[in-house]
């Protein structure tokens, strides 16, 4: 496992939105989930996670709710709003465009 890659600017929002699109998760779980799914390549720094969460909340894309974790502790769970779902679609689309384009350039002769 190499050094965790820096996230392409702006992709953290996409990752967070995607990660909580199935069910609400707390911040810790979001970071863990991204790490696991990406085979430990993507490590979300705490220093960027909280500002990103707050930013998304301010944009109205995610909504925070306090509820109990499996261990019975109160934690802040983040879930997608309707606007967040639309935003996720938009970001996915533009990510696809971008990555396809980068691929084309990289693979070209």
């Amino acid at each position, binding site marked *: 496992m190499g050094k965790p890659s820096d996230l392409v600017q702006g992709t953290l929002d996409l990752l967070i939105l995607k990660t909580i699109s199935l069910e609400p998760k*707390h*911040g*810790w779980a979001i970071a863990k989930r991204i790490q696991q799914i990406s085979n430990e390549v993507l490590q979300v720094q*705490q*220093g960027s996670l*909280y*500002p990103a*969460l*707050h*930013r998304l*909340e*301010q*944009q*109205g894309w995610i909504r925070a709710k*306090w509820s109990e974790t499996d261990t019975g*502790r*109160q*934690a*802040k769970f983040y879930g997608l709003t309707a*606007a967040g779902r639309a935003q996720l679609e938009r970001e996915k689309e533009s990510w696809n465009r971008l990555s396809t384009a980068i691929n084309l350039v990289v693979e070209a002769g």
Partner: protein
Amino acid sequence: MRWLEQFRMAVLMLFRRKSETARLNDELQFHLEQQIAENRSNGLGMDEARSAALRTFGNPTLLRDQARSTWSWNWLEICLRDIRYGARTLARSPGFAIIAILVMALGIGATTSLFTIARAVLLKPLPFREPNKLVMIYEHFRSATAGDGFNVVSPHDFRDWREQTHGFEDMAAWRNYGFNLTSEHDELPEVVRAAGGSWNLFSVLGVQPVLGRAFTPREDQPGANHVVLLSWSLFQRRFGGDASILGKPIRLDTNSYTVVGVLPRWFTYPEPRVQLWVPYAQTFTTDEYAAHDQHQSHVVARLRTGVSASIVTKEVSALQYQLYQANASKPVAEDAVFRPMIDDLVQDVKTPLIVLLCAVGCMLLIACLNVSNLLVARSAARRKEVAVRGALGGSRLTLIREQMTESMLICAVGGLLGLVISILATSWFANNWQGLPRAETIGVDGSVLVFSIGLVFLTALLAGLLPAISATGSSVLTALQESSRGIGGSASRAVLRKILLAVEVALTVTLLISAGLLFKSFLHLRTSDLGCVTDQVLTIKYGLPEKQYDTREKVAAFHESLLQQVRNLSGVRAAALVSTPPGGGYDGDDVFTIPERPSDKFNLQYDAIYRTADPEYFSALQIPLIRGRFFADQERLTRDHYVIISKQLASQFFSGENPLGKHLKVAWGSKPEDFEIIGVVGDTLYDVTQPSKAMMYFPILSGIPSQTSGATIVVRTSGDPLALSLPVQKQVAALDPALPVYEVFTMQQILGNSTASQSFSATLVLAFAGLSLLLAAIGLYGVLSYLVTQRMTEIGIRIALGAQKFEVLRLILLDGLRPVVIGSLIGLAGGAIAGAFMRSILYGTSPLDPLVFSTMIGGLLLTAVAACALPALRAVRIEPIQVLRTE
């Protein structure tokens, strides 16, 4: 609607900041616990797991700050923190804070208020359609004796201009007029100021009557059907705003006029006192309307789109020169000029307004420098703290921001107070500034708010930036060394303070000199000689309606019996009639030739103000007879063609000759008449702010056109002149109950009225200058006490080594007074420049008046010495032992 949601969130966050911070801590804590748990499950011990978790997390405070920085109110919190910090610092020296805030409040308030007025009066567009295209046209004469001048226009010239020029869309004329307004229902008669306007005047201006219609071309003829337009205020006041007045008759000078329209409420052109309008041509007789000598009209023209001003100027000039040549025997000027309507309206107040605006600007700047100076002193005391904080990693920007917050706080609170002051001051100015044109447009609005907010930031910057930069600039080491030694080593800051002080002094001197010049010319005006007695004289005006008093005999009989009755009142020492008393205004002039010099032709060089008077007028007002004689009693009615001239006229047109027995040929109407000069009397001024002009007096009952029916009765009394005003008015009413009197004034009041505007601006500038002097004294005192404190040790050592008290005193005084002297020298130059700018509003005073200059410099130096003396004496009393012990 997303922004709405975002805004809702932002506002929510604003109110939930505390609880949100707590929740954020909670969240972080939870995540920390999770990390610890994970570390433990990887086999680490409790302590190890905790410290590893903390390492992964990094600095929790920083994390928190980073997270919070996404909240949109972060800057607000920083601001609030800065403000709290600034307020705490200020609260530690409340005296300084209160003075600084008051000074700023006064400065910002006065500046805002004058800006409001200047903007309304000088800059706001006129309320007419495309006001930039409106110009006023005047006849322009060049005279070897009287200098160049503008002249109002005769109806004949106006018609020629209108018909024969092409550069104007249209051209209209108006003239001042007056009526006795009586009513059908025995209401009190009143004298109303009116204007005669040509039928197209309202369309040239772009104004529609709100009720009814404007005049038609057919009504704008001499002798046409009488019609009248009412101003909104007369319509409301006299006719209760009842629209049924349209088509009904009202009585003006006993003639019946049909009301055809009402003008809009905002229409106050050419001034608010004009209450009604009649057609222009109807204010003339047929003869007058056809004449070139009735210079009474103001001409308003609208430039055609795309026509340049220079072309139109040439066109009008050329036409006027033709008229001049074609009418050589008539008083026609050889040239014509125009100027923009707005300049024409405000020309008299432009300079005073700019002077006042500069004066308050100066005062505000002085206030800023003062606060700045005090802040420099304050920052010196806090240098150690600032330097240490700087060394511990406080960024310089943060430190500067903190320092700035203090001046920002002072200026913001001052600005808030200042806004209140300016609202009060603006309405006070608008009501008390006599003769201020367009006063009705003055008001505090959004742009004024923006101006004062801008002013707050500007002053905060001015006052705060220098001290802040200088306070944060030095290295820790020097700061600590200096403050531990307690010696005035911060030479750069002392120099900075001296420069600030010199600038402050320079501004103050400039302001003081300007104020002195204005005040001296005001004193000159107040004490200036109108050329007659002004104590114990009452003047009352009345006008006899021509329809009722249609023969000279009837007019004479009225005047005669009124004078008789008034002379019989107790307390009356003399009573006489004149068309317009000294100081009562220009009221018309005319051109003449001297038949004894056959080559003369009518030319505006031969021009004098005319008055009509009865025989006793000169003795009643104690106007001296220089040669010849006054009118005789029997010459009052017979129109014997006698004239009395003023000394000025004699010296101007008969220098080295005896004028008695010679003649003036005056162009009354279309046919000139000869008048024999029988006397020369002393000069009187028509306006105390104007130089004396040549004057000619005709007998009041001789039937000189338009000068017979209106008269002013002047009454010299043995007691309080105003006590006689009611008895005299009763006599008028006894003779003719329908006859209103107006303008009841004492001569002293006339004098006061004509200097009101000058005295107003002089008093204001004087007040600003006094305040500035006070500010400069405070600044001076502050700087010097600081310098003395800094040099305590040095002075103590000097005294210990045997320096004489006198030497120490001299040292301190010289040190303090050097910037004052430098500043004064700069201020002298500033005063000279200001004087040159104000030349047009100075009377009886040279712009370089040595008395004013020396008094003001002297006053400032005295103040400076006084401000220096206190700290200097403190320095002298230093006990060397004590100083060295505290070391």
